[in-house]
């Protein structure tokens, strides 16, 4: 890859991390029920979060806990780190996705889609038809999950690029971080 591209990846990595931090803050403060194009989707933070600061891998803080992550999350954010990766679940009706969103690179790790639905009649005897059936269902599931996160990323971009960020969104985030608990380490 070209040096210039790699340079953009590194210098603009904060954008995705700010998105993920904003998203987690929003989930914690406003709840995870979000209306997207007339349909309600429920997002929840899982029990794995990785915080990073700049491009320094030594400044990484990994939080894996069944219990309350908030105090350690607060301590990390107050030290100037941002959320780089977070385990999230997305629920739409009875369908549930789980993934680890890498905010820095906007990639979807360990994506677990809902179970594949029933195959079309006739696909059972035809291996290609069965494969095609399963593939379409799975790709549709992937595009659904990615679509939800793209919608949220677009919402973040609109806020980040507007005066609302400094006036409203950033102060709200700062209050959330301050109230997360945990000691200054």
């Amino acid at each position, binding site marked *: 890859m070209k040096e210039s591209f790699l340079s953009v990846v590194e210098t603009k990595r904060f954008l995705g991390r700010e998105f993920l931090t904003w998203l987690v803050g929003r989930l914690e403060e406003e709840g995870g029920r979000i209306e997207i194009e007339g349909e309600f989707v429920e997002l929840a933070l899982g029990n794995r979060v990785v915080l990073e600061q700049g491009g320094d891998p030594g400044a990484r803080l990994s939080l894996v806990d069944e219990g309350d992550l908030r105090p350690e999350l607060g301590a990390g954010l107050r030290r100037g780190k941002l959320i780089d990766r977070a385990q999230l679940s997305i629920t739409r009706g009875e369908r549930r996705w789980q993934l680890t969103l890498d905010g820095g690179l906007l990639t979807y790790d360990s994506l677990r889609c809902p179970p594949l639905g029933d195959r079309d009649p006739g696909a059972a005897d035809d291996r290609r038809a069965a494969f095609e059936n399963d593939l379409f269902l799975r790709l549709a599931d992937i595009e659904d999950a990615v679509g939800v996160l*793209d919608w949220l990323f677009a919402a973040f971009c609109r806020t980040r690029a507007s005066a609302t960020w400094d006036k409203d969104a950033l102060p709200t985030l700062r209050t959330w971080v301050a109230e997360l608990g945990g000691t200054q380490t």
Partner: protein
Amino acid sequence: MQNLRWVSSSFLLRWVASRFLLKFSYSYLWPSAPLVAHAYVPSLFLDRVSPGRLRGAIGQCKFATPMGFLSPTSSIVRFHAKPPRKVDRVAIASAASERGFHEHDGLGLLKAETFGWVAMHDPLVTDFDTGDLFFQQYLVIGFRFDTRTVPAKLAWMERRRAESARKAEAGVERLGRTTVREIKEDVESNLLSRALPNPKLYECAWNLETEVVYFTGKLKSASEAFASLFRDTFGVAPIPMIPYLAAERVGITADIVDRVRAVEPSRLVAEAATPTSNGTAPASLRAEIS
């Protein structure tokens, strides 16, 4: 008695391993099963295998999780790639076949990294027709990425052995720089040819309508090899959709995209209250102190 116990447990483990591999060889849920079988079955059935090694092999089978879209979990990396205005399916299938996975290069040599296209439904298929690749608006194809490694200590010892033999043969105390380099290359090539490949299978689905490529691998070396092979095969370079670039593909106006790209990092706490990671005061505070 102890030996007999090892023999019986060895047979049992062999049987379990073979049943396990055969079962999954026919499953779309684990397309890499034939490869794992290919890599391990000869060692299971032809070699004199110690129980520890056998358990190790079975352990690797157990954890060699599938990487594809149809596996229970997968990691997805997105790229943007604009397909040509008119997609010539036959030409694309032919270009992909030309770059199908082959263990050896054109000179019959093995490399430390070998990669190429395989069919998604069967990783042993490397010659494609349009039916293997095109599924409605998607172009789907598998990507095989093999790595071979030679233990550094072994390479060093073998090099020393070869250098000693060459010195004795030539009746000299020291070898020239060119000869030393030749020996190094020969030894590495020889050891590489004896090393077992570590195959990794990834999958790619290119939505020709939305111009998005989904790739099921995050390993940097594999991802770079994939991008290069994709460009060589399909004539378009896939661009990773990092947040900076993804902004223009999520349905926001060009004006907002430009403004987002120009933003500077925000601080989530007031600057004076944030200790830096090395414990010193922030720059603004240091300025005030001085």
